[in-house]
């Protein structure tokens, strides 16, 4: 699929630290913010838990972007 195609939607995988950005993502919900539904978040106990292998695996399986946050 090319980026010019009208209906293209990126698939984003997020690795979020339980203690900060995962909690922040929860807070966004509590405050009823709204953002596009393209991101799928994985909870990790620390951004230091994210092995580069996980990121490569996400790209291999078709993710368009990976967000590591912590």
């Amino acid at each position: 699929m090319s980026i010019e195609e009208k209906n293209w939607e990126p698939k984003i995988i997020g690795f979020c630290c339980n203690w900060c950005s995962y909690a922040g993502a929860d807070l966004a919900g509590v405050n009823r913010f709204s953002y596009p539904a393209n991101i799928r978040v994985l909870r990790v106990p620390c951004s230091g838990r994210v092995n580069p292998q996980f990121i490569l695996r996400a790209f291999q399986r078709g993710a368009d972007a990976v967000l590591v946050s912590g």
Partner: protein
Amino acid sequence: MVAAAQHPHIKLMTFAEVLKVDGYVGNFEITVKQKARYVDHEKCTGCGTCWEKCPSRTSSEYNLGLGDRKSIYVSFPQAVPNKPVIDRDSCRYLNGGKCGVCSKVCPAGAIDYQQEDQLVKFSAGAIIMATGYDLFPWEEAYGEYGYGRYPDVITGLQFERMSNASGPTGGRILRPSDGREPQNVVFIKCVGSRDDTKGKSYCSRTCCMYTAKHAHQVLEKIPGSRAFVFYMDVRTPGKAYEEFYQRSVREGAQYIRGRVAKIYQSGDKLMVKGADTLLGMPVELEADLVVLATAMTPSRGYGEIARVVGFSTDKDGFFQEAHPKLRPMETNTAGVFLAGACQGPRDIPDTVAQASGAAMKVCALLSKERLETEPMISSVNRSLCSGCLECARVCPYKAIEEDSVSERAGGKTIRRRVASVNTGLCQGCGCCTVACRPGAINLLGFTNEQLLAEVDALCL
């Protein structure tokens, strides 16, 4: 104070500082520096001969510069412990001089100029931080109040020392400049509090009430006196607080809503210029004494002790609670609790309530013989571990130790180095798993296999 000193389960370590805290909840290893007092408190009877005879005088910190003390001293007459220490900065003998009078007059032979700082080590299961507060250094910020140039502009705490019966003036409210009783006393609230430009953004919570008390004390102790209070708002949220404030108004305290723009000396008076924002008029008052309600700030050295014990502080340096509403007595470090103004400005009833709450949390912890640990921690597969200990180098909690295993190889028994996880220290962050090349260390509950399966499931 006496109750704590006499309690059989309490060991008091005064003139001492916590230097190091190792370990974890249930098993902290503490190192405390006992500073040299130059007085053997085992022998000292507290008779007071030494401080009567000591010829060296210096300004008393305890009385905030409003009085003197000797170089060998107790801070105040009812002090606990009621035994003196020698101030090494002002003592003549310790500064190479000759004096030595205290040693000669001491009937118990308790003076020991050779005493040195000592390190004391012990273990503890829980820690309560109760380091309190200090006052905002208004002299550095408020030029309009004279940067501390005028002796008769004092802080609320100095006022307390004066009105305290065992303080430097024996409980009389006097002008520091000439020792006369003031007639017109002006109080200024929110000095450093609620002032983003010069001070702190927060409200210090206690000043409205103690200023009402100070006004009451002036009117009570000095016949014919007048008390003026400049305020931004009057905040009295507490049981019997509003009534107390109303009482000081009824007694004659005059509340003026507005800020003071300038204080200057005029003869032996202080001229106070401000605005009454309710009347929309400038105000000028002739004052004999000005009392500033200065903001509460974290106790000096707050950053250092937070680092040593291992928890975080907020934007103003107050100790960070785990949750502002639901866990106000806990820090994010397990086993470390908060009591009193070190967490944020508060008054005595709130402090006592929080201290008892923190004590309850500690009792709950200490009532157990053993503590359950979080099972989602790292685990080493010893047969895969190469013993490189890269995991130990990246571990932020120093939770990985060196260990060894015995193995039969080639007909011989050999010992092989492996990593071992301390289950008490491991916080389950999983940094070690990323550093491990042979893949021998894994995080239970967040294993490599699980995380890869999650990635696959989300990318489907």
